[in-house]
């Protein structure tokens, strides 16, 4: 149906983007935004991980849709060579600029770049979760050191992705201005205006609906634990390994503060701490020598060196060998992880001391200190 603009030239409205492609686009954009907002803070790791799975799932969907989807979503119609890209770019500032109903060559390249890089980010994220946190589908396959390497890859590729998205958005704005068409609105409505009559693509609404339902059901399934959580029984998205315990340790070290698991300090620290039990932070523990011997054996066998958890491994790795801190709260890793918490937090009546780990960490008594298992009042 031709309609008229203010110059009365005929304009045809053509549906270029089917519904699944549009919803994919905006879901992916939201996933990237949510992933960015939830990164860097251990409290939100479960959100970050869910968004990562969502991101991965969306990419896989788009790969399939690139093969079976409608005309302008199909990869074979987006496969512009380097030559076509170059031609498009150099003619862009001139009157000879080429107009494309679907994606132009630059947009197509951005799509392949984002999809490819996105897959690297998603996979490196799953590998980081498996290696560093020993959680998720590949837990137990990689060690902490490998997890740290994956984490680096994950971070670097995420930054490159941000740069690529910046280029993509600038490209959309530049092309919108030069071609006098609102490409952002087109990605919302699916419709572009054309001087000649063109065939609209099918809407494919049922596919879009299935996509949305799958996303909603997965989110509900992933976060359902929060619905049944109570203040006494908080929900722990990640459950760590069960660390060895010792009855005497539990009895003698759990009264004034929680019995810190020995994996939170290196051997040399425990040696020193138990040897100075008469002046234990202004308290005289006054424990009998045979008790100290038992406690010492347990502590040395389960110290940070044994690295049963990410926390233990990081504490051991980052504490200089020349130092034997008597406080977990003096280790560089602890300080680095808590440096962003505001000073008032430590003065809160239910916290009182930095060493009062279980005021914030739900799994402090177990010694695992998993991600997303802490909150600040």
């Amino acid at each position, binding site marked *: 149906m031709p309609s008229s603009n203010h110059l009365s030239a005929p304009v045809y409205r053509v549906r270029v983007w089917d519904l699944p492609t549009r919803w994919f686009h905006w879901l992916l954009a939201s996933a990237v935004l949510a992933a960015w907002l939830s990164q860097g803070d251990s409290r939100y790791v479960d959100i970050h991980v869910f968004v990562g799975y969502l991101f991965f799932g969306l990419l896989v969907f788009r790969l399939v849709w690139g093969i079976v989807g409608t005309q302008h979503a199909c990869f074979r119609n987006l496969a512009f060579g380097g030559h076509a890209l170059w031609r498009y770019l150099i003619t862009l500032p001139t009157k000879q600029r080429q107009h494309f109903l679907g994606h132009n060559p630059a947009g197509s390249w951005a799509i392949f770049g984002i999809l490819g890089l996105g897959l690297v980010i998603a996979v490196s994220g799953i590998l980081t979760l498996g290696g560093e946190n020993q959680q998720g589908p590949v837990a137990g396959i990689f060690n902490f050191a490998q997890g740290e390497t994956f984490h680096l890859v994950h971070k670097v590729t995420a930054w490159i992705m941000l740069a690529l998205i910046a280029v993509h958005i600038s490209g959309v704005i530049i092309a919108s201005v030069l071609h006098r068409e609102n490409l952002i609105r087109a990605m919302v409505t699916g419709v572009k205006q054309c001087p000649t009559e063109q065939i609209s693509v099918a809407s494919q609404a049922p596919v879009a609906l299935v996509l949305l339902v799958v996303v909603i059901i997965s989110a509900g399934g992933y976060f359902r634990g929060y619905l049944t959580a109570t203040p006494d029984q908080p929900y722990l998205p990640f459950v760590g390994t069960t660390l060895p315990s010792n009855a005497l340790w539990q009895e003698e070290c759990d009264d004034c503060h929680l019995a810190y698991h020995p994996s939170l300090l290196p051997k040399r620290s425990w040696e020193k701490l138990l040897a100075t039990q008469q002046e234990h932070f202004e308290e*005289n523990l*006054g424990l009998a020598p045979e008790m100290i011997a038992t406690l010492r054996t347990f502590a040395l066998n389960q110290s940070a060196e044994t690295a049963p958890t990410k926390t233990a491994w990081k504490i051991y790795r980052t504490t200089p060998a020349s130092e034997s801190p008597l406080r977990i709260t003096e280790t560089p890793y602890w300080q680095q992880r808590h440096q962003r918490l505001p000073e008032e937090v430590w003065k809160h009546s*239910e916290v009182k*001391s930095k060493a*009062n780990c279980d005021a914030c960490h739900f799994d402090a008594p177990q010694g695992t200190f998993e991600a997303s298992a802490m909150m600040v009042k």
Partner: protein
Amino acid sequence: MQKKHLVIAGIALLPLVNPPLVYATTAVEQLLVEYRSQGATEFTVEAGKELFFKEFVDAKSTQVRQCTTCHTDDLRQPGKHAKTGKRIDPLAPSVNPKSLMEIKNINKWLKRNCEWTIGRECTAQEKGDVLTFMQSQ
């Protein structure tokens, strides 16, 4: 006849059904006997209460320290460790059946807490008074 015997036997055995209370008294009773043998005289709730609420000034930090600093003014309420913030179960045996149960535990904590609060170990008299006070709560 038969039945009456059973009832009497049952009543006689009743205290064993609730061992915590029995043991709590035994532990403190035993300690009080021990303190008396060390020269202490009569123990009173009042003297124990006075000590429990008395303010001491720590020489090093110049802070005021009391038993109530960690155990609060109400022994039936949970306390909070002055330095670490950890919850401490109520000391009153009436609400915490585990309190004052074990001689070993009482000795350990009286030694530690007197040293921290008063700056020295408590005397047998003080220990007996404070336990008598705590037991009445």
